[in-house]
C-alpha cells in the first residue's frame, strides 16, 4: 500500500521531471488569477464609479447604460461561454492563450467586482464627499482621493475572496490550451494512465492554496482593522 503510494508519487511528480509540469501549471493558475483580479478591480472600479455617478447626478447616461449591459451579460452567461467568445471571436487573431485567459477572466471578474465596489463606495459616509466638495475639490478628485481609498479599504476582504474564487474558476482554462494546474494533471495522466494520484494531488494543492490564502487575508484584515482603531 505504502509502496504503491511512493510509486504513484514518483510516477506523477519525479519521473521525467514532471513536477516541473505541475509547477508551470501552478504558475499559470496563479498568474491568471492574479492578473484577472487586477483587471477586474480596475474595470469594476470604473464601472462602479460610472454607476454611482449616474445615480447621484443623472450624468453619463450612455456610459451607465453600457455598464448596465456589460454587467447584465457577464452575470447572466457562463464563464466558459465567455471564454469561448473571447478566444474564438474577439481575439481570434491571437494565439496568446494565457493573455486571452487573463482578459476573459478579468472582464468576467470586473462585473462582480463592480457590484462589490459599488457597495464599498456607497458605504462611505456621504459627509466625506460633502467635505471634499465643500473645500472646492472637483467631484473627480473627491472620488479619487477621498472616497475611493476608503471604499477600497472597505472592500479589500471581498476582493480577496474574489481572487480565491478566480483561483478555482481558472481550472477550466485548459480547453484554450493553457497549461494550468488542472491541465498539468491531465497531461501527466495521459502519460502515466493513473488518474487517482494526479487528480487527488491537484485537489490537495487547490485546497491548500485556497485556505492558505484565506488565512493570509484574514491576518491582513485584522492588521488593517487594528491600524484603523489607532
Amino acid at each position, binding site marked *: 500500500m505504502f509502496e504503491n503510494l511512493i510509486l504513484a508519487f514518483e510516477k506523477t511528480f519525479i519521473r521525467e521531471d514532471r513536477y516541473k509540469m505541475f509547477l508551470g501549471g501552478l504558475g499559470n493558475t496563479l498568474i491568471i488569477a492574479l492578473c484577472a483580479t487586477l483587471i477586474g478591480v480596475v474595470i469594476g472600479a470604473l464601472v462602479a464609479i460610472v454607476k454611482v455617478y449616474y445615480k447621484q447626478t443623472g450624468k453619463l447616461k450612455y456610459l451607465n447604460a453600457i455598464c448596465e449591459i456589460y454587467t447584465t451579460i457577464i452575470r447572466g452567461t457562463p464563464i466558459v461561454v465567455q471564454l469561448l467568445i473571447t478566444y474564438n471571436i474577439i481575439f481570434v487573431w491571437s494565439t496568446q492563450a494565457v493573455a486571452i485567459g487573463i482578459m476573459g477572466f478579468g472582464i468576467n471578474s470586473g462585473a462582480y467586482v463592480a457590484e462589490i465596489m459599488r457597495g464599498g463606495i456607497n458605504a462611505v*459616509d456621504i*459627509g*466625506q464627499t*460633502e*467635505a*471634499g*466638495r*465643500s*473645500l*472646492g*475639490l*472637483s467631484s473627480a*478628485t473627491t472620488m479619487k*482621493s*477621498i472616497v475611493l*481609498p*476608503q471604499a477600497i*479599504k472597505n472592500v479589500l476582504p471581498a476582493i480577496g475572496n474574489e481572487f480565491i474564487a478566480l483561483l478555482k474558476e481558472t481550472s477550466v482554462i485548459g480547453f484554450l490550451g493553457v497549461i494550468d494546474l488542472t491541465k498539468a494533471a491531465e497531461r501527466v495522466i495521459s502519460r502515466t494512465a493513473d488518474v487517482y494520484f494526479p487528480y487527488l494531488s491537484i485537489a490537495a494543492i487547490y485546497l491548500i492554496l485556497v485556505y492558505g490564502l484565506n488565512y493570509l487575508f484574514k491576518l491582513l484584515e485584522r492588521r488593517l482593522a487594528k491600524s*484603523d*482603531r*489607532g
Partner: protein
Amino acid sequence: MIEVKNLYKTFDGKNMILKNVSYHVKRGEKLVIVGPSGGGKSTFLRCINLLEKPTYGEIWVNGKLITPVDPYLHFDVIEASLTYGKLYEKSVAENPGLSEEERREMLIREIKEKDLLHEKNEGGEYRKRMKQIFAANHIQIDLARQKMGMVFQHFNLFPHMTVKENITFAPVKLKLQTPEEASAKADKLLARVGLTEKADAYPSQLSGGQKQRIAIIRALAMDPEIMLFDEPTSALDPEMVGEVLDVMKELARENMTMLVVTHEMGFAREVADRILFMADGGILEEGTPDELFNHPKHPRTQQFLRCVL
C-alpha cells in the same frame, strides 16, 4: 457678499422645505440661524454652497451667480418669452385701456404667480437672454467654494489622512499653495487651536472637540472669506463644546463673515450681529440678538425661545 434671492427648495418635487427665502449677508457679518428642528436651517445653509441644489431662486456670492439663472427674477427675460408675447396680445385685445406700464406689471406678476414659463418653448430670444445673463455672471461652483469654508456637525475629517494631510490636501491639490506653504500654514493653524502635537495623528485618535477644531482649521487653510457652520457643537460631549466655541469666537473677533446654525443661545447672544429665526421653511423673524431674544415679535419665535431659554 452673499445674496440669496427667492430661494425655494423641494426634495423630490414634493414637500417644500424652503419657501421664498431671501437674505443678504454683508461682509464681516456674523449671522446666527436658530429655529426648531426640521425648520430648514441646514437646508438653507447647504444651499449657499450648493451642497443642496435650490429648486428656484438665485444665490450670488461676491457678485457672482452660483446657481442657474432664475427667469422670474429678471423682468427682461420674462418679457422676451413667447408666453409674455401671447399674453400681451390677449391683454391688448381684452383690456385696451391699460397703460403700457400697468400692462407690463400685471403680466409679469401673473406669469410669476402662476409659474407660466416653460424653459423649452419660450423661443430663441428668451434663451439668448438667459444665456447672456448666465455667461456674464456665473462662477463655477468649485471656485466659489474655495472661498466658502464649511464645518459640519459630524466633522467629516478624512479618516485615511493624518491631521496635517487633512489640512493641506485641498490647498495643495488645487495648487493654491505649494506643499511647503501649506505645511507652514497648517503648523500655524494647529498652534492657534493648541493641537500642534496632533499633526501626525489620525482623526480616529482625536476626541470630538479636537476633531471639530481640526475641521475648522482645515476650512481656514483655504483662506476663506465666509465660514458656514452647521450645528458645529451638537455632536460633542458637553465638556468639549467650549473649546470649539472659543475657536469660533476668536474667528468672529478677526471679523470673518460667519453663518452659524446653532442651538447655543449663549454663543448667539455674544457673537451674532444678526439672528435669523427660521421655521416652516422660511425666515419668520430677524433682528439683532437684543431684538430677537428680548423682544421677539412673532408668536413662533416667542414659543421657540420659551422652550430653549
